[in-house]
């Protein structure tokens, strides 16, 4: 598949070993709930880091911290310009599918016609040809997610924070988008933080899989994936990483999302 | 002065803003007649007639010199001066009170003496409430035995709705005439017949400095207005036409009847010229206002002047 993303990736280009995202001992609490507890996480330039963890373990919170949409209660967050693809797509109902996808370009001052043209090409890539003019409520769940995905890519930020970008997609569409994203990242590398519930997806796409414990979220395992992308889901290492990640998740205490541990519950 | 005249000797046309006391009606027929007959133009005047918001506005606008002259009420002039305004009445438009005590047959009030135990609607204007007190005292009716309700602008509806037995504040030459024409048989008692000192209901006012600076303009104005009223007196049916023409929403029959009713009070008694104000009457009325705590000080004679009335002054 050919792509014409053309999103100008910005920022200086230092050595690939320099961390483009760095969280040091980050703690984030919401009243009595501790979402993240002393999380340290680095993503090098152009590294793809998958974050997995129980529901409510603070993954979305982590991404918002990286994108500067929340501030930590303790610890420090440093990141290049990062764009978030939110867990709920947050499409704007007053724009059509194309308008939503083209939004970041418009915000960068790109003219309407040009922005829509580039968004049009990208929507085609994610399988939404013919739905450019569809209103948001006319889109199915997976279609909405793909529009949001396209929108995120078009923002052209050096860091992508993807919060379950393919959660609402069927296996086939998902696999296709995996392949396509791999291709795009090979051509225009970015730093990616990928939150997913699908450990296989994590193993297929990421250079490193970070496992969070259930609330409060702490890093309990980091699993490197050495096989170069594209890697099939059947690759030995992928299967192994998947198994290790599941193990780490289970070991961390998967008791129904770990909601019942003592303390840290809202009154 | 010489500079007010064009080389050929005819006076230069001067603009003059006149604020009426209220929406145009029969009381202003003479002014419109003068306008239509060209009396203002002949006097070198270009009169711009404006309609005010509330009856207190003309005084304010004249005091602020946002209008050259205005039609106001004698009591309003005295009140304004008492508050420090420098407005002067320089001519009377209506010589006698128009305010009246009015009732419908259903109210069973033939005169002030019948008011005992009754309800009287007033417009909520303090000096008119004082009229009621004076009237009751004169008629020997205890003040406490009469219930006064403020009905705002709705004097006539108040009577029609039978919620009040009588009203004080409606004009006998307007509401009175109209009610009679509609066959409602209103009973009317005029203020001066019930013990209230007579006063000029409508007067022309100007700011003191205007008086000094543009005296001859005012003189020409009064003269022209006087001519308009004479025209009106000669042929009321024809004289009322300009008013009707300028105000399409006025009812011909009513306005003509009202004009006919008002004609006697447009002109002073005892052959004085149009606009003449009776100094003694003003004094008596001013004293009455002081007595009734409506004014803080006795008004000075400078509240009015007849200097600009036709045939007076220089």
């Amino acid at each position, binding site marked *: 598949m050919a792509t014409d993303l053309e999103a100008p990736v910005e920022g200086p280009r230092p050595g690939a070993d320099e961390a483009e995202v760095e969280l040091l001992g980050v703690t984030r609490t919401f009243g009595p709930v501790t979402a993240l507890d002393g999380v340290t996480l680095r993503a090098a330039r152009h590294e793809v880091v998958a974050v997995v963890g129980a529901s409510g373990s603070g993954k979305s919170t982590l991404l918002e911290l990286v994108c500067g949409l929340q501030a930590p209660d303790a610890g420090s967050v440093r990141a290049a310009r990062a764009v978030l693809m939110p867990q709920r797509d*947050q499409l*704007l*109902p007053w724009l059509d599918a194309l308008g939503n996808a083209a939004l970041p370009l418009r*915000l960068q001052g790109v003219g309407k016609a040009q922005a829509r043209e580039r968004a049009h090409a990208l929507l085609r890539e994610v399988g939404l040809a013919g739905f450019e003019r569809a209103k948001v409520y006319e889109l199915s769940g997976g279609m909405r997610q793909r529009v949001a995905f396209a929108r995120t890519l078009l*923002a052209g930020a050096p860091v992508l924070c993807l919060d379950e970008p393919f959660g609402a997609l069927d296996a086939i569409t998902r696999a296709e988008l995996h392949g396509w994203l791999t291709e795009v990242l090979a051509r225009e590398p970015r730093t990616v933080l990928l939150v997913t519930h699908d450990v296989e997806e994590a193993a297929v796409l990421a250079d490193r899989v970070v496992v969070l414990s259930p609330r409060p979220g702490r890093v309990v395992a980091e699993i490197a994936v050495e096989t170069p992308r594209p890697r099939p889901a059947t690759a030995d290492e992928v299967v192994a990483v998947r198994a290790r990640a599941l193990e780490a998740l289970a070991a961390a205490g998967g008791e129904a999302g770990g909601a019942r541990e003592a303390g840290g519950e809202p009154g | 002065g010489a500079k007010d005249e064009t080389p050929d000797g005819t006076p230069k046309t001067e603009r003059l803003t006149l604020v009426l006391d209220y929406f145009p*009606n029969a009381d202003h027929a003479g002014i419109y007649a003068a306008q239509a007959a060209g009396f203002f133009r002949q006097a070198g005047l270009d009169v711009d007639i404006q309609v005010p*918001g509330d009856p207190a506005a003309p005084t304010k606008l004249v005091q602020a010199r946002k209008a050259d002259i205005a039609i106001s009420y004698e009591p309003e002039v005295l009140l304004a001066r008492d508050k420090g305004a420098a407005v002067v009445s320089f001519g009377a438009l209506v010589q006698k009170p128009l305010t009246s005590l009015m009732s419908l047959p259903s109210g069973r009030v033939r005169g002030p003496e019948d008011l005992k135990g009754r309800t009287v609607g007033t417009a909520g204007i303090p000096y008119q409430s004082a009229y009621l007190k004076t009237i009751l005292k004169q008629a020997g009716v205890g003040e406490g035995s009469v219930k006064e309700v403020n009905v705002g602008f709705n004097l006539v*509806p108040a009577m*029609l709705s039978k919620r009040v037995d009588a009203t004080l504040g409606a004009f006998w030459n307007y509401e009175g005439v109209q009610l009679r024409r509609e066959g409602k048989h209103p009973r009317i008692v005029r203020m001066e017949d019930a013990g209230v000192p007579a006063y000029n209901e409508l007067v022309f006012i100007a700011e003191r400095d205007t008086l000094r600076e543009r005296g001859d303009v005012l003189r020409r104005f009064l003269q022209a207005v006087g001519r308009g009223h004479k025209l009106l007196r000669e042929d009321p049916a024809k004289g009322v036409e300009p008013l009707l023409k300028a105000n399409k929403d006025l*009812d011909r029959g009513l306005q003509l009847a009202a004009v006919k009713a008002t004609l006697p009070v447009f002109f002073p008694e005892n052959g004085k010229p149009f606009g003449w104000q009776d100094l003694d009457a003003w004094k008596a009325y001013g004293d009455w206002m002081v007595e009734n705590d409506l004014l803080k000080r006795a008004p000075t004679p400078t509240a009015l002047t007849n200097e600009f009335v036709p045939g007076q002054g220089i």
Partner: protein
Amino acid sequence: MLAALLFLLLLGAWELYARAGNVDDFILPAPTEVGRALYDDRGLLWDNLLVTAQEVVLGLALALVVGAALAIALHFSPLLRRAVYPLLVGSQAIPIVTVAPLLVVWFGYGILPKLVIVALVCFFPIVVTTLDGLRSVEPEQHKLLRTLGASRWQAFRWAEAPAALPAALSGAKIAVAVGGIAAVFAEYAGSEDGLGHLLLQAIPQLETPRAWAAVVVLAALAVCCFALLALAERRLAPWAHRRKDPIP
């Protein structure tokens, strides 16, 4: 159809009530009398309607612009909101009679003071609803725009303004409905023509049917303006007007 029937029913009830002689004709004329006045005075009513309609439309336009601009300013500046909003609220409590002379001083006698009065009466609903609408944007949408790199102004342009539009139009509908009466007040405060002028002349002349005819014309004007705006609403904010299938 049924709606028209209901309307006629109400009219009939009024006619009966008025005919029964419960209230004097001068206080409540029967609809037939009002209808006759509507017909007899059609020229007069039409001429005055044109004057008033002009005041209403221009005044409303002014109110819309000023109201929306104020709401936006108040939304952008919390300082302004705290300092100026109470004044705006207070301004609604000022009876026109107290400011009418001031308006004459400032704006003279023409149509200008009338526009100002109409605008003064009408801008407030727009400010309140627009401001509340602007503040109703979900925090998640704000976050989205922030992460896409939107400036404060862009967040307004792409999220707050469209989100506030339906509420703002609610306010505009209120404004449009009271616009007629505002023009009448303005004409009370001094005028040579217009329906308010007609009304104030008709009342002391006891021309009650004509007064009510003027009211009917005013009401028709208000209903027309309102309907136009309701129509505009569906065009301007279609996303807020999706067909609902409520529970039967």
